[in-house]
């Protein structure tokens, strides 16, 4: 261990030094110059010149690119030279030079993009040579509308990828699931790899060239113990040789809530309360009539600017970009800003050495409000929950100028006070530096080394002033918490490519990588301030303090390799393997091996397919492999003593207790995945269909296995449990019209079925997803044979009427107008749950009442283009999931401690008995039941945009390369049955375990917004 530091330094330094040495030796090996060639490249469809087409001498890296007029000049060594013309989105052409000295090429749009190069882990592959399931999303889709990050921009774009906002607040995170959640207690988040750096910070959408989503094991196994949840490869934009291009884009958006909830007004509310509290003067006029939604909602907006300069020559290319994104939320006092700078430089030092640097710096500042709170008890209310439940009969201020507080039930702060008084600032800085060198050792053999560092700093400060309940109780409370996470990665791999006898096309890659993760975290808290004026910047001014700090360090050491073999341009074989060693694994299981195998068959290259005219492409794919999920936290396999807060004699003393027992065999979760795919293209690939069926079984699930609690421990992390995800994905791409009026359609739809196969001891696991002040009972269940996260509750049978037989049971109403629940179960002598009524209501009458998983998710994108105009219509949605709403339950419980929705107007009264809404009554229990279960399906018009590209002929005269102006709308239409703000909800769904099993629950979520955008993009 002693030498390790030194070695580590050396490890950091050597690649760079070697590269530097090699650079100096490298210059001066230039080719002999023989035949000058000139030519032009045009678009076959429009006849317009194509700018930036790569013109390469086949078998070399020598070449040039076409200029503004589509022209190029190049010198070739001899007449046998073959020139390769390639351009993104067009079919690559190879032209032998022969005796020509001028070559004019017309490029055909490649509808299927079969020649497109797809980035895969540690390399690239031609799309037609893919054996795995990979989705590609391109720059124009990622930047179709202003997005806070690339995950938001990916929503609905790729089959098998389900993306949901966790909360609508500007700056909130998105949940990404590729082919369902493979885990229950570990993260099911995919691995993000940015320009070869696993786990690096994500660049802003505008700096991204393409995103590849690796879905099956053939594609993901190369990432071994981190590949089980799929891998998202992000490739940033690079400069291209040619004239320097300056691009500026700007957009302005106006945002509004998707909808409001229909609540009782002051008179209706007062009438409701008077039924519970007859004659209470609080509900007699005069009173205010405040629409609290009106008070807290505002017109939000986004400004988004990017300035990018890119270009280069045949030796050096560069791309630099600065982006500023500024969002004002649709709720008062919520804001988000992001600034970033990206710089990518690639240098072709010699014919055998390329190297380059990617740098990114990013700062985001979120100035937030509280929403989706865990508890809206006396202290913890959030703005949204407060806005819907607060009394409309009160105003914002009391006569003495203080803020009003709810006068019924818990004394919640009013939503205006919550939004304006609480300070919550979250500043995140991301720094990424990545250098690479690529050395051609022999013909076909290259070595590439990446050395990267990624630093993530975050500081969150909150201050709860004495003007709010929570602050008043403690004399103001301030907290500051910081994180500093440092990742260092060193990737080194060799790639060998050769074609043997024109038949055997072989690529072999092998490498080693080392990555370390150091996570620091510290926090301080103080309360009891003399003034609220200093916010959280004077914690020393408090009278009560607390602080804490933490450090974890972990390492990952990996060997990996891949063989791609293609025979006769028809038969494709891919073998991947990775051997991962992780410090997080327990001592008996430090190393893990992850293999995958894949076969593909380009059937239409077979001779028997020739002449079957309509079929222009036909490919079958089959893969099998294993990947892992190493989401064991550092030190989780070790036995530990935990500290205890303890007081003796009025003083805090050092105290400990045993908290964890060791598990020397703790290991990764393994996902075994099989994938069958078929790609079909007909009518010259104008209609393309991709179909994938997959089956994944994740075994050795990490579970906190309950230990006998009398042992003093509650649980031990162990590898027990299995979960299965099976599904079908369909991607249909059609070019409906290809003439002057172009119309293309992309439709993707994904069906995933999640099922728990095995739980510890086969026992059901019960848990609750609910705000603590409402309920802390179990509302959800994990059960073998069922999907993860099913809702667990009672069946609501409407309202008891006078003369009904009331079913007895503690906490259940037994009177006319009361909520009526179904008696369905009992427990037999052995403690087994039997579904058979027993005449009383209790926990045995709970059942699985809902499923939070959609039957399918889909995206449907239409693009129409005509003479520079482009119309884009993009729908996205999900179908068939249930949604549980605590937001509405808190209101429509009609327990007299909150406002209610207009459903309350249908409540039972002695004169209005024909209803399923119970009567108003004080202190009604919160019962999880089908009453507040909703259909969470929705279809959303995610984007509707109309753009106009000014003709090049017009603008080029004034020195402008391109100019696009557009107007667009996002989320302007949402079709759903859910009466809350929005069905895209994820209450308590951001923690590791929570994100897997707490699904589709609504409580006080910040609503997603609809957006109207106008903008332009101009290029010089």
């Amino acid at each position, binding site marked *: *261990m002693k030498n390790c530091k030194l070695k580590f330094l050396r*490890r950091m330094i050597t690649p760079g030094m*070697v590269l530097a040495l*090699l650079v100096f*030796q490298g210059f001066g090996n230039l080719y002999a110059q023989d035949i000058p060639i000139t030519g032009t490249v045009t678009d076959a469809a429009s006849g317009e010149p194509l700018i930036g087409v790569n013109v390469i001498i086949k078998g070399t890296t020598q070449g040039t690119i076409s200029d503004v007029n589509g022209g190029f000049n190049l010198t070739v060594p001899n007449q046998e030279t073959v020139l390769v013309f390639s351009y993104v989105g067009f079919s690559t052409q190879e032209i032998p030079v022969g005796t020509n000295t001028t070559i004019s090429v017309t490029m055909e749009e490649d509808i299927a993009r079969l020649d497109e190069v797809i980035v895969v882990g540690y390399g690239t592959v031609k799309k037609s040579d893919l054996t795995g399931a990979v989705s590609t999303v391109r720059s124009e889709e990622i930047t179709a509308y202003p997005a806070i990050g690339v995950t938001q921009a990916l929503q609905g774009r790729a089959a098998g990828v389900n993306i949901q906002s966790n909360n609508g607040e500007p700056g909130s995170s998105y949940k990404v699931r590729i082919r369902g959640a493979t885990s229950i207690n570990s993260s099911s988040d995919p691995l993000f790899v940015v320009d070869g750096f696993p786990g690096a910070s994500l660049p802003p959408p505008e700096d991204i060239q393409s995103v590849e989503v690796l879905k099956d094991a053939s594609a993901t196994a190369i990432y071994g113990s981190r590949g089980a949840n799929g891998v998202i490869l992000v490739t940033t934009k690079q400069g291209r040789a040619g004239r320097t291009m300056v691009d500026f884009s700007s957009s302005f958006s106006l945002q509004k809530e998707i909808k409001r909830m229909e609540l009782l007004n002051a008179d209706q509310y007062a009438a409701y309360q008077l039924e519970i509290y007859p004659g209470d003067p609080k509900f007699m006029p005069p009173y205010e009539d405040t629409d609290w939604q009106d008070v807290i909602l505002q017109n939000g907006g986004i400004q988004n600017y990017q300035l990018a300069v890119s270009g280069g020559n045949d030796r050096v290319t560069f791309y630099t970009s600065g982006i500023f994104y500024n969002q004002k939320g649709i709720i008062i006092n919520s804001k988000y800003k992001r600034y970033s700078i990206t710089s990518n430089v690639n240098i072709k030092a010699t014919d*055998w050495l390329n190297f380059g640097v990617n740098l990114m710096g990013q700062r985001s500042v979120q100035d937030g409000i509280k929403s989706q709170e865990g508890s809206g008890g*006396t202290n913890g209310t959030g703005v949204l929950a407060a806005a819907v439940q607060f009394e409309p009969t009160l105003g914002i201020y009391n006569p003495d100028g203080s803020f009003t507080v709810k006068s*019924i*039930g818990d*004394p919640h702060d009013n939503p205006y006070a919550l939004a304006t008084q609480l300070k919550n600032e979250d500043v995140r800085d991301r720094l990424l530096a990545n250098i690479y060198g690529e*050395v051609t050792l*022999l013909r076909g053999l290259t070595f590439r080394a990446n050395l990267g560092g990624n630093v993530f700093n975050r500081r969150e400060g909150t201050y709860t002033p004495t003007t709010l309940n929570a602050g008043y*109780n*403690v004399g103001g409370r301030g907290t500051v918490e910081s994180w500093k996470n440092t990742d260092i990665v060193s990737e*080194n791999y*060799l790639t060998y490519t050769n074609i043997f006898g024109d038949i055997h096309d072989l690529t072999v890659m092998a490498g*080693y990588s080392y990555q370390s993760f150091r996570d620091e975290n510290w926090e301080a808290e103080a309360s009891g301030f003399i003034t609220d004026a200093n916010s959280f910047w004077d914690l020393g001014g408090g009278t009560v303090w*607390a602080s804490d*700090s933490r*450090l*974890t360090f*972990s390492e990952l050491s990996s060997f990996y390799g891949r063989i791609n073999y293609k025979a006769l341009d028809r038969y494709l074989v891919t073998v991947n393997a990775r051997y991962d060693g992780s410090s*997080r*694994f327990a001592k008996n299981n430090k190393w893990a091996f992850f293999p995958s195998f894949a076969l593909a068959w380009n059937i239409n290259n077979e001779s028997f397919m020739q002449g079957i005219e309509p079929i222009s492409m036909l490919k079958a794919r089959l893969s099998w492999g294993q990947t892992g999920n190493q989401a064991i936290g*550092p*030190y989780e*396999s*070790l*036995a*530990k*003593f935990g*500290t*205890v*807060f*303890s*007081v*003796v*004699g009025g003083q805090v003393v*050092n*105290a*400990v*207790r*045993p908290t964890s027992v060791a598990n020397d065999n703790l290991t990764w979760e393994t996902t075994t995945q099989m994938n069958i795919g078929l790609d079909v293209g007909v009518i010259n690939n104008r209609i393309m269909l991709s179909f994938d069926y997959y089956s994944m079984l994740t075994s050795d699930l990490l579970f906190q296995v*309950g230990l*006998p*609690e*009398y*042992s*003093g421990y*509650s649980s031990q992390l162990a590898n027990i449990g299995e979960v299965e995800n099976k599904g079908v994905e369909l991607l249909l791409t059609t070019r409906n019209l290809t003439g002057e009026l172009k119309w293309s359609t992309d439709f993707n739809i994904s069906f995933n079925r999640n099922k728990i196969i095995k739980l510890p*001891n086969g*026992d059901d696991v019960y848990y609750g997803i609910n705000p603590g002040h409402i309920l802390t*009972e179990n509302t959800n269940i994990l059960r073998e044979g069922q999907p993860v996260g099913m809702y667990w509750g009672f069946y609501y049978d409407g309202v008891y009427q006078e003369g009904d037989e009331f079913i007895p049971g*503690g906490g259940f109403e037994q009177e006319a107008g009361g909520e009526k629940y179904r008696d369905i179960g009992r427990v037999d002598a052995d*403690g087994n749950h039997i579904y058979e009524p027993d005449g009383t209501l209790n926990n045995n009458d709970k059942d699985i009442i809902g499923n939070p998983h959609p039957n399918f998710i889909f995206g449907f994108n239409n693009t129409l283009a005509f003479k520079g105009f482009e119309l884009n219509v993009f729908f996205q949605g999900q179908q068939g999931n249930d949604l549980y709403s605590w937001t509405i339950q808190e209101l429509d419980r009609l327990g007299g401690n909150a406002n209610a929705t207009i459903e309350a107007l249908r409540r039972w009264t002695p004169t209005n008995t024909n209803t399923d809404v119970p009567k108003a009554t*004080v*202190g*009604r*229990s*919160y019962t999880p039941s089908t009453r507040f279960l909703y259909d969470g399906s929705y279809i959303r018009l995610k984007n509707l945009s109309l753009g106009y590209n000014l003709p090049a002929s017009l603008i080029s005269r004034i020195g402008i390369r391109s100019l696009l102006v557009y107007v667009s709308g996002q989320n302007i239409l949402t079709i759903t049955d859910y009466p809350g703000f929005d069905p895209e909800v994820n209450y308590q769904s951001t923690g590791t375990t929570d994100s897997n099993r707490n699904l589709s629950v609504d409580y006080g979520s910040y609503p997603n917004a609809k957006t109207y955008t106008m903008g332009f993009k101009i290029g010089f």
Partner: protein
Amino acid sequence: MFNHLKIRKMKNIKLFGILFIMAAIVGCTDLEEDPVGVLAPEGFFRTEADVEAAIFGAYGRIASERLYGRKLVLSIQLLSDMCDIGDRGTPARRQQINDFNSDANNGMTSNIWPYSYSVISACNAAIEGANIIDTDEATRNALIAEARFVRAWMYYHLIRLYGDIPYVGEFVNDPEAVATISKTSVSEIYGFIIEDMEFAWQHLPMTHPDNVRTRPSKGTAYTMLASVYLTMGNWQQAYEKAKWVIDHAAELDYGLVDNYQDLFDATKQDGIKEHIFAIDFLGQQNGGGGENDDLMGPITGVRGADVVGWSVSVPSMLVYETWDARDYRKKVSFADSMIIGGELKDYTFYEDVPRPHMAKFHRFPGNANQDTRYSDHNYVCFRYAEVLLIAAEALNEVSGPTAEAQGYINQVRARARQWPTFTSDFPADVAGGLSKDEFRDTIMEERRLELCFEFKRWYDIKRRQMGDEVFKGANSLEPHDNFNSGIHYLLALPGDELDRNPNLLPQNPGY
């Protein structure tokens, strides 16, 4: 030619360089974890302070929301006839405990159980540690004595709540070792408790430095032992242990405080002479896992009052009405008026539950949140008044209502007459001429009032088998017709624990 040579040479350099890089990278990391900021059990115990830290760990767990901050003590309150559910909108788990319809999945039970055993686990770790460290015998025994006291104290709660339970008397580092054990009978566990208490009495000091009352002394050990024998019905032993404490009151620095209110004033509790053992909460401090989170103030406080509470545990109206107002203890124990909206209003103006609420836990919380959460209270487990009442009760069973026995009660009553500014005529001294049975009833009533809301009454009801009388009798303060003495003197064992270890079956009868 020259160029070619150079290229070949260069290639060698390149290859060599790359192999060198890869060799440097591989073979360094051994993937061992070397945690910082995490305590490993191996080699933890080196000094007395390390053992003390484990004992203090037990105290910290007791002073948590799950035990003395709310769940344990609230459960004991609600089970009794002195504390009823106020706001019926409160979570069902509390109502089920109060209404005698809880089951094996009740959320109070399922939290009390593991936290209690984490206290026991910390004690067992301390005992193991004390046996390892290098120290003198007296110090070692004192440390073991303290750990054994706390362990026995915790088991005493558990057996009264649950009956037969698994008994773990040693530190567990491999849970497999205890995975299949069976329950130990209550009587056997009483045996262990008595052994622990006798050991504790031998090796604990008479007093602690700085007059600390939240660590046990010899007096604490015998007070608890007196309580244990009383519960077992071993009257002679109960009397003897209580008598020993009374006889040594001066050396132990025990006595009744003059003002009954002082017992419940968080600013006056540290070192107060009447406290024999208390659980210490520190104001406005929040530990992890509910540690040091005292919620009894808001739980018993008044919803809608300026010092706001949640009206969860509220005595029935009869508890208030049947208590003579001349008794100063009634004044201290009840909040029958509160400041609401800046004005003093009587209980009929209480928003949700228009009944007098208990005041012991939210009137003087000391340094606390505005709603009295995170109070500075020391929650008393044993105080000197109870020792007197134990002695009186046990002596009555042994020798009838002797003058000595009467004298013990009268000490308590005399203090109850003592208002801050005058002396009341109520409660009068115990009249002579009572029969043994009458005297027993008198003592039980005295315990009900003197120790009201102090997490004692349910255990009295249980040990004296008074359930049918106090919940179904004509004079019931809080009627529960469904009370079943064949079932409800015990809570259900946590269902998931029985699933994990079926050797713990059968479940308690009726669940």
